[in-house]
């Protein structure tokens, strides 16, 4: 991780005292490609969740249904392209190593949950992402793959006709697609809440890329 060394002035009059400020630097937490991937993903998934839910519960707004379908159709393919590029980027930069939940992360889970349930004050140090984040991001990655797969079948039923009987028919596929959307609806607020309250430095870095140390 690149570190911008920067000798910052000691703030003698700072209320926390000069102790923690004698040597400061900026750290690039999220490189630019990751930030771009993140925000495209955030924007497309939000749009897809809303348009998808509108397709399930139509008629709430007085707009042509074909407009909603068109918006969803376009964002589907933006998400697919973004996911493909993100996977490629993660593989060549080895970003996936710090992102994917692995078996060894299971050992850190008890400690992590102790912090989460207010039994412990110190969050502990796990690397770039804690086990909870890793589990969430891995789950989302798998869910996005399921959504792309089922979504493509629903979008092009004639091309994927050979798969439909094996997966239990179009209506089952539609149900899986809908249920997975609900998992997104349930887990995205957790991510937003924790991002807003846990560490403002990391929140800042997903916008700017950099954080003070």
């Amino acid at each position, binding site marked *: 991780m690149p570190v911008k060394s920067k000798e910052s002035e000691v703030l003698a009059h700072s209320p926390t005292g000069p102790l923690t400020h004698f040597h400061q630097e900026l750290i690039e937490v999220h490189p630019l490609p990751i930030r771009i991937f993140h925000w495209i993903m955030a924007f497309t998934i939000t749009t897809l969740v809303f348009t998808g839910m509108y397709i399930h519960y139509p*008629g709430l707004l007085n707009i042509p249904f074909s407009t909603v379908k068109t918006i969803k159709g376009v964002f589907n393919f933006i998400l697919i392209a973004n996911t493909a590029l993100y996977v490629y980027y993660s593989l060549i930069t080895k970003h996936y190593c710090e992102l994917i939940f692995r078996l060894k992360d299971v050992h850190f889970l008890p400690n992590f949950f102790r912090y989460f349930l*207010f039994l412990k004050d110190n*969050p502990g140090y796990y690397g770039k992402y804690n086990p909870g984040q890793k589990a969430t991001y891995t789950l989302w990655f798998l869910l996005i793959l399921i959504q792309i797969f089922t979504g493509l079948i629903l979008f092009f039923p004639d091309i994927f006709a050979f798969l439909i009987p094996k997966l239990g028919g179009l*209506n089952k596929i539609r149900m899986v697609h809908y249920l997975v959307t609900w998992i997104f*609806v349930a887990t995205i607020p957790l991510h937003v809440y924790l991002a807003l309250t846990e560490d403002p*430095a990391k929140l800042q870095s997903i916008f700017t890329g950099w954080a003070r140390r």
Partner: protein
Amino acid sequence: MLSRREFLKLCMQTTAGITLAGLLRPNILSALAQGEITRPPVIWLELGSCTGESISLDNTQDPDLKQLLLEMVEMRYHWLFNATFGEPALDIIEKTAREDEGKFILVVEGSVVTREEGRYNIIGARNNRLITGIETLKELAPKAKYVVAVGACAAFGGPGAAYPNPSHAVGVQDVVKRKVINVPGCPSHTEWIIGTLAHLVMYGEPELNNYNCPTLFFGKTIHELCHRRVHFENGNFASYPGEEGCFYKIGCKGPVTYADCPTRQWNNHVNWPIEAGIPCIGCASPHFPDGMMPYFEHLPDIYLPGGKKRVEKIGATLGGLSALGITTHALGSVISGRMGKNLIKGTQLKEPSPGEKVKPQEIIINKLDKINQETKEEFDQEVILNKLEEIITEQK
């Protein structure tokens, strides 16, 4: 004789006043007269079913259709239309299977009952021995030229195999080890039956889709052909059956059902469900009825150990649990003071980033901080500063 292309065109077109049988009959008769095709023998076997397909055929008011069925094929056995009954009727089946092996068409109606070796479905008795449906089917299917499963039950199990399926019924294709041509529907449209049989007689096996249904009739979804499609695109949705507008919102299964009902029309070509003001229930779909129920909801029920559950409820429960979790954690954070601590400390990373070499000063400060917190004693800041200066100079 009609070319196959012309035949397909005839089958898919809609002509007011003339039925498919009426269009096909002269051509088939002339082909028969010129000896271009031969009349194949047909055995119509009924297994676990409501006789819906046969009644549907028998009730048709189209005179051409009945005539065509008699002229085009040689109906050797059909328990409803037979002139004979009992052992002589069973003899006909046996004779056909023996003499016309590889020539006859086996049409099956109704689901195959498999429980207790099929003893819940008896189709006849010989020498005081009851003959089961599955036994007859397994005997006849390998000898037939084509096996045609007519109706939702024969094709995919259908209502006969619906939850909880006490008779362990299955579709024909799950029992016989050969290709089965499926003509689904509950009941199957008479023209789907007659059209498929005509294609078999004239040109052999028709083009089949992924569920082995003829694409001739099951190539497009009802949604694609529906005359209320424009309401769907415009976002004009009906909230109750009978209203104007698209029935998508009240669970129309048109988007997932492949059939040509909108152009073919039912009840002797006068109407069809959506025109009559009721959503499609997907009876021609392979997963009818379990995968299509409830009829007035989009998505099927999920069968969990605790009983049937709605997908919407499961989704909303997940969302609710998430909201509850966030609220609890937020309250806990405020009460324990963590929220304030995290936010007041501001935009500075709490822990070192991976690969970063942590400076000794920081380690010392962290340790001092910890001691400070543990002992809850106030250190003299100046003393600490002096100590630190010493350490730093030592390090350098």
